[in-house]
Structure formats: structure tokens, C-alpha cells
């Protein structure tokens, strides 16, 4: 009887190794390995002692279903976080958030946009193209002051863009709530009628409708 046990242990060890490798990099709000993200171009410029960056993330709305959500009349939030990393490091030295909130005004047929970033906040009424430019392009985004970056060292931005992000706390709360919807528990709670069923949906609760991550090319400020 030792053989089955040894065989089972070997199987577990094999699965453990395989799945651990598959899991790496998933599930973190901050890029786990920012240096390994797909690279896209950004334009950097000094504005006094402030480093600014310009780049686009329009493809976060590439899914037509997601783009269609913009015109449902209900709010859509596009949140971008840009982490400034020193090349070779996984620890950010600065973080810049940029949040865009869009609601389509059904009767005026304009998109009302509230944009919030470190430099300023603004409210606009724009057409769809304006939404895309306002909410999916960072233009002259203030990244860091000169004192934060070491001269002669290369830096890059690790960017995370989320559409309709939900805080982990709220996701957890929803999962709790969804795991016990009205009627989810039978008279004998240990014998839950819907338990495993509702679990399927709790699992589908993502932390956002879409997530895009990338890094910019390195730059020596």
C-alpha cells in the first residue's frame, strides 16, 4: 500500500510545481514583474523640475462590448495607475493615478466626463472621440519631481489601466453576499442547496471589467 501513497505524493508535487509556475504574476494590483510587461512608447519631457510623460492606452476599450458600455447611460470609470520604476527594480519610486468617469447624457447626447489626476480635475461634455482622448490618453502626465529620480539611471513606467475597477474590499463583500443570496441556504445549512452553484458566479466577480498592463520604454531623465 505504500506505492499508491507515494504515487499520490508525486502527483501532488508535480501539480504543485506546474500550477505555481502558471500562477506567477497573477492577482496583484501592482505589476508583479513590471520589467517583463509588454513595452509601448511614451514621450518624456522635463517641465521645470517635473518629469512628464505622454502615452496612449486606447486599446483598453478595444472590446466592442466594453466600448458600447460607454453609451448605456450608466457611469463607466477608467482608472489608470502609472508606477515609476528604476530599471531592474520591482519597487516603484512614484505613483501617478488618473481616473476618468464617463456618463452618457441620454437627452443631450453628450458624454459627461470627470477627469481627476494629480495636477487637476475637470468636468467636460464631449463626443465619443473626446472621451477616448480624455480618458485613454495620458498627455503631459506629471510623473515625478527631479529630486525623486537619480541622475544617470534609467527609469520606466509600469502602467495598469482598469475599466470599472472595484476595490478588493467591495469584491470580497459582494462575494460574501453572493455566496448567500436569498434562498441560497436550505433548512439544513450544512446541506446548502445552491452553495456550489452560486460559487460559480462569485468566482466570476472580477476586480474590473477589463485590465490592461504595459510598461514604457526606459528613459534616462
Amino acid at each position, binding site marked *: *500500500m505504500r506505492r499508491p501513497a507515494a504515487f499520490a505524493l508525486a502527483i501532488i508535487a508535480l501539480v504543485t510545481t506546474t500550477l505555481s509556475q502558471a500562477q506567477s504574476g497573477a492577482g496583484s494590483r501592482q505589476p508583479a514583474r513590471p520589467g517583463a510587461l509588454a513595452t509601448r512608447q511614451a514621450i518624456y519631457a522635463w517641465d521645470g523640475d517635473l518629469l512628464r510623460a505622454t502615452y496612449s492606452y486606447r486599446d483598453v476599450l478595444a472590446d466592442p462590448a466594453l466600448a458600447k458600455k460607454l453609451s448605456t447611460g450608466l457611469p463607466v470609470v477608467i482608472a489608470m495607475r502609472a508606477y515609476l520604476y528604476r530599471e531592474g527594480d520591482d519597487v516603484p519610486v512614484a505613483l501617478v493615478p488618473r481616473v476618468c468617469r464617463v456618463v452618457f*447624457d441620454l437627452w443631450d447626447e453628450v458624454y459627461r466626463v470627470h477627469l481627476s489626476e494629480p495636477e487637476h480635475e475637470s468636468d467636460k461634455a464631449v463626443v465619443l472621440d473626446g472621451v477616448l482622448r480624455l480618458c485613454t490618453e495620458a498627455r503631459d502626465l506629471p510623473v515625478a519631481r527631479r529630486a525623486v529620480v537619480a541622475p544617470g539611471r534609467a527609469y520606466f513606467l509600469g502602467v495598469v489601466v482598469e475599466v470599472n475597477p472595484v476595490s478588493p474590499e467591495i469584491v470580497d463583500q459582494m462575494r460574501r453576499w453572493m455566496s448567500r443570496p436569498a434562498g441560497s441556504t436550505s433548512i439544513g445549512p450544512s446541506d446548502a442547496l445552491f452553495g456550489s452553484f452560486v460559487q460559480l458566479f462569485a468566482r466570476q466577480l472580477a476586480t474590473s471589467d477589463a485590465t490592461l498592463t504595459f510598461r514604457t520604454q526606459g528613459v534616462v531623465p
Partner: protein
Amino acid sequence: MRSASCAALGLLLLPALARAQAAGAQYADLAGSVVSDPSGLSSAFQGDVTSPGGGDRSDGLQRSLGLRYTLEGVEVRGNTTTLSWVVLRYVPFHAGDVLDVDNPALALTRFRLLGTGYFRDVQLSLRRGTHRGAVVLVVSVVERNTMVVDDVWLGLSADVEPNGASRPLTAYAGVRVTETNLGGTGLALGGAFAVADSQLALRARLADPQFLRSSWIAETELLYNNARDFYGNRDVLVDYATPTSTPADYAVAQYVRFGGRIGAGHDLGISSQLFLAYRLEKIESVLPLAASDYRGRDIEPIDFMLIRGGSILSTLSATYVHDTRDEPFLPKTGHHVVASADISLTPFGSDYPYAKLSLHGSEWWPMPFGHVLHLEGFAGGVFGNAPLFERFYVGDLSDLLPDRVLDLNFDRRPAPNFFNTDIVEIRYGNYAAKINAEYRVPLYRGMRSIYGVDAFGSVGIYGLANLDDFVNPATGYSGFATVPIDLTFNAGLRIDTQAGRIVFGLSNFIGLLPVRGPDQGAGHP
């Protein structure tokens, strides 16, 4: 307005900021510094402005984006099976309401509808109403198959040879299936069966998650069990009514249960629920005329824990559940407490005067690297003469023996008895307790067919006893051996999949190893 949006922004980014600040990031400095010139960005976008907005909304509303409309109605689309009123009872908006597009109840409505399990996708949108400022809320659903397999049981139960080797007793199988949206009405109809050699269990259950459109859950269940159980460990003397009975080293009782229960439940808050139920059963049992077995060194008559012939069981039960787990199968944090009380209603004809109390608590703690520690405790007591199937069974406490399925017991083995105590004499008891610790290591998390895979290892100690074991321990045992406790352990994988939950445990193998040798049951002569 600015402070409100900054607060929202801060809330959104709080976890990230905490990490970034811990890493020495300079976000606070950046966020606090307002560069005097917005560098013309704003003016660049001004060209996109097409209209400053309608006259029925104030400037303040425009700034907050909190557009408000008069709700003209709610429209359900995409439901081919589910009746519209079933969807609408989860939508807390009605015609004539002022609808603020920022109302969080809109998002919650979507999750609430998803939580019913009737739909694969739910989307909310607005469309213009018949006059300016009016809108219709459109709920678009994509239905899914609502027939669910809740449980599948397959196994091989065992007896033991005198030398301790396992001896197959019977194969068993069972399944529990539920249609969670019967005819699109939102009612749930469930059925279950379990079958083994000379045993059959059937269940049928109907549940309404919103009884009469109230916040009460109502449920009714029908039950049928044609069961048998095994008594005695060895050297059993048994006198059956039929002289052709096959001699065996155990006694067998057969009984049939038929009845049902009705109940209702209600939320006591976001994490707590209370359930009340009434049960009525008719029991017909066929017992040996007499049987005796060794208990320690003494021969004692076997208590079959059933009334010979026909009897009635009538009980009232109350169950309180407090559940803060973040998810039901692979929780990382939270606790789960179930307290229940059953009282047999002898004044109303029940033939089994007893009360049963049990408390089961679990707590999960997140550990470094995403690992999870789970501690659980259970304690219960039966006071009076409860029928066999209401008493605590060793297989339900030990990971190394099969659990009962739909109250059917397939296995005849006693406790593995790693501590050489008198627990080997006890398969059913009126008092039970268990503490168990489990450590889980997440291996995989996914969103498609496999949602999660965790490796786990657990170890626990349980005890099972009757009153006699406290006041008159079995002869032949002394000292620590009179404390009826045993060790249980398990290790393996917990897999959460689209098809259901699977546990691969080493105990499935270990449970078939010879764990009871000739020396076990040391009290035997």
C-alpha cells in the same frame, strides 16, 4: 465636489498607495503638488464640447456627473424562460422614481441578479423615455442552464478481517441534482438519491427563495430511506427472527423512514441567518430478537437505537448561521458558525424523547505567501433516546472512514484508534467533539473551468462517547485508554471547478490500509 472625488480616488487607490508608500514612493508629494499651469490640456479638449447640457439639470449635477432622470419603467430583455416578474423582484427601482445614475444600488442590482444563479450575464442600461428627462431602465439577461449537480458520491465501504485487513462491504453511489429555476419561476426543485447493497435513500425538495415575494425563504422536503446498519465489532451473538439468517460477526438492523419537513428561514443581517423547521417521519424497523457484543471484557446487549416495529419521529429545529467567509469553498478569511438545536416533540406523538444540540465553528486566517490557516471546532450532545441516525457517527468525525450519505451508513469499521483507547468500542455516540487544523497552500487561481486549486494538510483529534463511557468505562481499559479519542488527518488537493468541488485526499488511500490489528480493542478477551 473636489474633495469628494479626491476621496473616491483615494479609496480606489488606497491599497496601491499603501504599498507604494511602504516602498518609499513619492505619491503623496506628487498628489499634493498642484502645478500652477494645467499646460493647456483643458483648452485642448474644449473643442470637443458640443452642448453644455439640458436645461432641466443644474450646473452642480453636471459637475458631479450625477445625472438624474425620472424612471418611466423597467424593461427586461433576453429572458426566454425566466418570468419577467422573477427578474423584477430583484430590481429595487419602480416607475416614477427619481433615478440617480450614481446610485450604487444599480451596480448591486446586477450582482444580485447574477447571484440568483439564473443568468450567465446581466447588464443594465438606460434608454430614453417618452419625454425629456425620462428614461427606461433596461435589464438585459443571458440565461444559463439552471440544472445543477450539487453532489456526487461514489465509494467502496469496508469491513475488516480479524487480521486487520480491509474487506469490501459494499459499493455505494449517489447524486444530488437541483433545478434552481423551475419553469422560470425562481423556485428550486431538488432531488437526491443514494444506493448501496440493500440500502436506498431518496430526497425531493422544493424551495422558494422569496416566499410570497417576502424576504422569507420557504422550503419543503420529502424523505425516504430504506436503510440498514451494523452493530458490534466481533464475536457478536445475534438472534434473528428468521432461522435461515447467515451467521455473521455483526448484527444488522433494517429500517425504513418516510416523512418530510417544512421550514422557513430569514436573514438576521448581512452575515447571519436563522432557520426553523418542523419534521415528521414514520419509521418501520426490523431488529434482531436479541444481540450482544463485547464491550471491553464484558458482554453487553446491543442497543439498536431504534424502536422495534413502527414509530413516529417529530421534531422542531432551529439553526443559526453566522458566515463571514469571503467565499464558500476556498475561503481565505472569515468565520463560519453554525449552532443548531433539535427537540423531539413527544407531547405531539414523537416516540423518541430527546434533544440535540450542536455547535460548529470555523475560522480562516490569511498567512504569508497567500497561504491559509483554518481552525475548526465542533461539539455536540444528544440528550435522551434519539434514533440511530440522529446520533453522532464515527465516520462523520474521522477523515479515514466514509461519511454518511443522506443518513445512510455504508461502513462497518470502528475508529482507526491510533491512541489505543476505548473509542474502538464506539461507532455511535451521544457526545462528540472535534478540533481540527488545516493549512492550505494556493496553487492556482483561474476564471474559467478551474477556479482554484489548493494543496492542504490537516490534522485533528476527535472524541466520541456515550454516558456509560464516562461513568462506567469499558472494562479492560485503564488510564488514558479510557478517554475515547482518536487522531484524524488528511492531505491532498482541494479543487474548485466549474463542474463542482473536488477533494483528492490521501485519506482515501490511508482509509483502506489495515489500521485495526488483532491487538486493537484491547479490552477484548
